[in-house]
C-alpha cells in the first residue's frame, strides 16, 4: 500500500458551496426526470451529506486526543507495536485453532443435542470425527486454549495501548479505503475484547453475557478471525520492516538514560512532542512479560494438576472439593442440577434401547456383569482438568452388543437430571468402540460419589467433560 499523501492536498481544492451548488443542480435534474418528491429529497440529502463531508475534511482536528501533540509517550512507536503484534501473531492463531478443535470435540454434526450453533452453515466446514486417542487430547487442547487466552491479556492490552493514537486519527476517514479499513478495525478490536471477555467470564461461571456462551464465543471468534486475517495481510510488511528497524538485543541493553523515541513514522505512532522517558523499552517489555508470567502462575496449575494445582491461586478449580477417592474437581454438583435422592435410589434403573426389546437393569445387575477399568482424566471446556482417575464399570462396546447393535454408529445418553443443556448427549461409534469408554460405576476403588454421577456415568477418553454424562439412566444405541 502506498502512502496516501496526507488526505486533501491531492484532491482538487473546491469550495464546499460550489460543490453543493453543483450537486443541487444534479439533484434538481434527477428529480425532474423521476418526477417524484422522494427522489428529490434523497438527492438533497446526498448533497447535504457530501457538503458536510467536505467541510469536515477541511476542518482542523478537534482539541484533545485528536491533536498529534496530545500523545506523549516517548516509547510508543512502530517497533514496540510490532513486538506485541508478533506475539499476538503467534498466539491468536493458536487460540483460534484450539478453539476450533474444542468445537469439533463436541461432535456437533451428531445433532442439535451436541450443537449449540445449529445455523453455523459452512463455518463448521472442517469438522471431523473427534478421536479418543490420546486420552489427554482434550485436556491439552482446552488447557492451552484457556491458559494461553488468560496469559495473552497483558499483551493484547499493551498492543492496544501502543496504537491508541490511531483511534483518534483526523480526519476520521481520508478515503473509502481508509473508512473500510477502520470498519474492519472496529471488528478487530471489538472482536478481540469480546472474545477475551466472554471466555474469561465463562471460566469463572459469571454468566452476564447476553446469551449462550457457545453461540457468542463461536460466532464472535469468526468475526474476530476474519478481521484479524485481513489486518495481518495489510500490516505484515509494515510489522516486518519495523521489527528490522531496531535490534531486540540492542533494546534489551538500553537503559532508561539512553532511551530515545523511534524516528517519526508515517502512521503517526511516534509522539511529535515526546515527554521525557520514565521507563525504557526493555522495561515496558519486561512489565508486559511479568504480567503474563503472573497470570500464568496463578492460572496454569488448574490445568496441570498434581501438586501444582495449589499454585493456581486465583483459578476457579485450584483445589479439591473433598478428601478421599472422590475428592477431585466437579463441574455440576447433584444439588445444582436438581438431582434428588429418589431419582438415584433403589428405584433407579438403566434402560438399554437398541435393536431388540428395551432392557432394564438395576445397579446390582450391572455390578454382576464383567467389569473393566480405565485410567482417564476429566477435562472441562473451562480449561481445568483432573489427573487420571481410575474408573471401572461396563464397556460401552459391551452394552452396544447387549442392545443388539455391536456396530452402533451412535448412542444417545440421557441423564436423570431435569432437562437442560447437556442433560443428554450423543456419542459417536468410534467413542463407543474404544475399550476404555465406560459406563462407570466406581472411581478410584469406591462407589461414585453423587456429585460424580452415582449410580452410573459415562467416561470416554478425550471427550469434553460435559459430554461425559453423569446420573445416566438411558442408553439408546442407533445403527
Amino acid at each position, binding site marked *: 500500500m502506498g502512502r496516501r499523501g496526507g488526505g486533501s492536498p491531492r484532491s482538487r481544492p473546491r469550495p464546499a458551496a460550489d460543490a453543493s451548488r453543483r450537486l443541487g443542480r444534479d439533484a434538481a435534474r434527477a428529480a425532474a426526470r423521476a418526477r417524484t418528491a422522494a427522489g428529490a429529497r434523497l438527492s438533497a440529502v446526498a448533497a447535504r451529506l457530501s457538503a458536510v463531508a467536505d467541510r469536515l475534511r477541511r476542518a482542523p482536528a478537534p482539541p484533545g486526543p485528536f491533536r498529534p501533540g496530545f500523545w506523549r509517550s516517548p516509547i510508543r512507536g512502530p517497533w514496540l507495536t510490532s513486538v506485541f503484534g508478533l506475539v499476538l501473531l503467534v498466539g491468536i492463531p493458536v487460540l483460534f485453532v484450539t478453539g476450533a478443535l474444542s468445537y469439533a470435540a463436541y461432535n456437533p454434526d451428531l445433532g442439535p443435542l451436541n450443537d449449540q450453533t445449529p445455523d453455523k452453515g459452512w*463455518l463448521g466446514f472442517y469438522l471431523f470425527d473427534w478421536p479418543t486417542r490420546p486420552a489427554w487430547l482434550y485436556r491439552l487442547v482446552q488447557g492451552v486454549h484457556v491458559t494461553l487466552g488468560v496469559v495473552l*491479556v497483558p499483551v493484547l492490552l499493551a498492543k492496544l495501548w501502543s496504537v491508541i493514537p490511531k483511534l483518534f486519527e483526523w480526519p476520521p476517514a481520508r478515503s473509502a479505503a481508509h473508512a473500510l479499513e477502520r470498519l474492519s478495525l472496529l471488528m478487530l*478490536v471489538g472482536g478481540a*475484547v469480546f472474545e477475551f471477555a466472554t471466555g474469561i467470564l465463562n471460566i469463572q461461571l459469571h454468566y452476564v453475557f447476553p446469551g449462550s456462551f457457545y453461540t457468542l464465543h463461536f460466532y464472535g471468534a469468526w468475526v474476530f478471525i476474519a478481521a484479524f486475517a485481513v489486518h495481518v495481510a495489510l500490516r505484515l510488511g509494515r510489522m516486518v520492516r519495523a521489527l528490522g528497524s531496531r535490534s531486540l538485543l540492542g533494546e534489551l541493553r538500553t537503559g532508561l538514560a539512553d532511551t530515545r523515541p523511534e524516528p517519526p513514522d508515517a502512521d503517526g505512532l511516534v509522539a511529535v512532542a515526546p515527554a521525557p522517558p520514565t521507563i525504557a523499552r526493555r522495561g515496558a517489555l519486561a512489565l508486559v512479560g511479568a504480567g503474563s508470567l503472573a497470570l500464568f502462575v496463578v492460572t496454569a496449575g488448574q490445568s496441570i494438576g498434581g501438586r501444582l494445582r495449589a499454585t493456581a491461586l486465583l*483459578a476457579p478449580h485450584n483445589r479439591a472439593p473433598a478428601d478421599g477417592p472422590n475428592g477431585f474437581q466437579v463441574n455440576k454438583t447433584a444439588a*445444582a442440577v436438581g438431582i434428588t435422592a429418589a431419582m438415584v435410589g433403589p428405584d433407579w434403573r438403566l434402560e438399554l434401547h437398541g435393536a431388540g426389546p428395551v432392557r432394564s437393569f438395576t445397579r446390582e445387575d450391572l455390578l454382576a456383569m464383567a467389569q473393566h477399568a480405565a485410567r482417564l482424566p476429566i477435562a472441562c471446556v473451562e480449561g481445568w482438568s483432573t489427573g487420571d482417575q481410575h474408573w471401572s464399570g461396563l464397556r460401552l462396546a459391551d452394552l452396544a452388543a447387549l442392545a443388539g447393535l455391536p456396530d452402533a454408529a451412535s448412542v444417545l445418553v440421557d441423564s436423570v437430571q431435569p432437562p437442560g443443556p447437556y442433560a443428554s448427549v450423543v456419542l459417536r461409534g468410534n467413542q463407543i468402540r474404544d475399550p476404555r469408554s465406560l459406563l462407570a460405576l466406581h472411581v478410584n476403588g469406591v462407589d461414585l460419589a453423587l456429585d460424580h454421577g452415582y449410580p452410573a456415568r459415562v467416561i470416554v477418553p478425550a471427550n469434553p467433560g460435559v459430554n461425559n454424562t453423569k446420573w445416566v439412566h438411558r442408553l439408546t444405541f442407533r445403527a
Partner: protein
Amino acid sequence: MNRRTPLTRWYGAGPLHLLALLASLALTGFAVQRLLAERPLAVAVWFVGAAVAHDLLLLPLYSLADLSARSVLRRRRGPAPAVPWINHLRVPALLSGLLLLVWFPLVLDLSVPYPGATGLSEGVYLGRWLAVTGALFGASALALALRLRRAGRSGPARGSGEDGGES
C-alpha cells in the same frame, strides 16, 4: 506501487486492498448475522461496548492514574529521592490490577453459580488477591529501599535535579 487508475483514485488504495477487505467483511457479515440472531441489540451493545469500554474507559483511566500519581508525587515537598521511583509504584499496581481485571468475578464474589457448580466456596479469592497485592508492593518497596541505600552509599553527589527529569 499505486498506478492512478480511476479505482485507486476514487477508493484510495489498490484493488488488492479492496478485495481483501471485502472478503473479510463478507465473512464478518455471515458470522455477525448469526451472532445477532437472538437478542441482537444486547449482543451488539456487548460487541461495540467491548471496544468502547477498553478504548474510552479502561485505557484513559489507567493513563490518568499514572499521570496523576506522577504529578501528585512530584509536587510533594521535601527532597526528591535519589533514584527514579515511579516504576516501583507502577509495576506492583499494574500487576495487581491485571490480576483483578482477569479474575474479578471470583475475587469480588460475583459468580452466583460457582459454589453450586464446583462444590467450592468463592470466599478464598479476595484474601488471596489482597495477599498477592501486598506481596507485590512489599517486594517493590524492599527493592526501592535497597536501591536508595546503595545510592546513598555511593555518595550524595547525585542530585535530585538529575532524576527529576526521569520521574
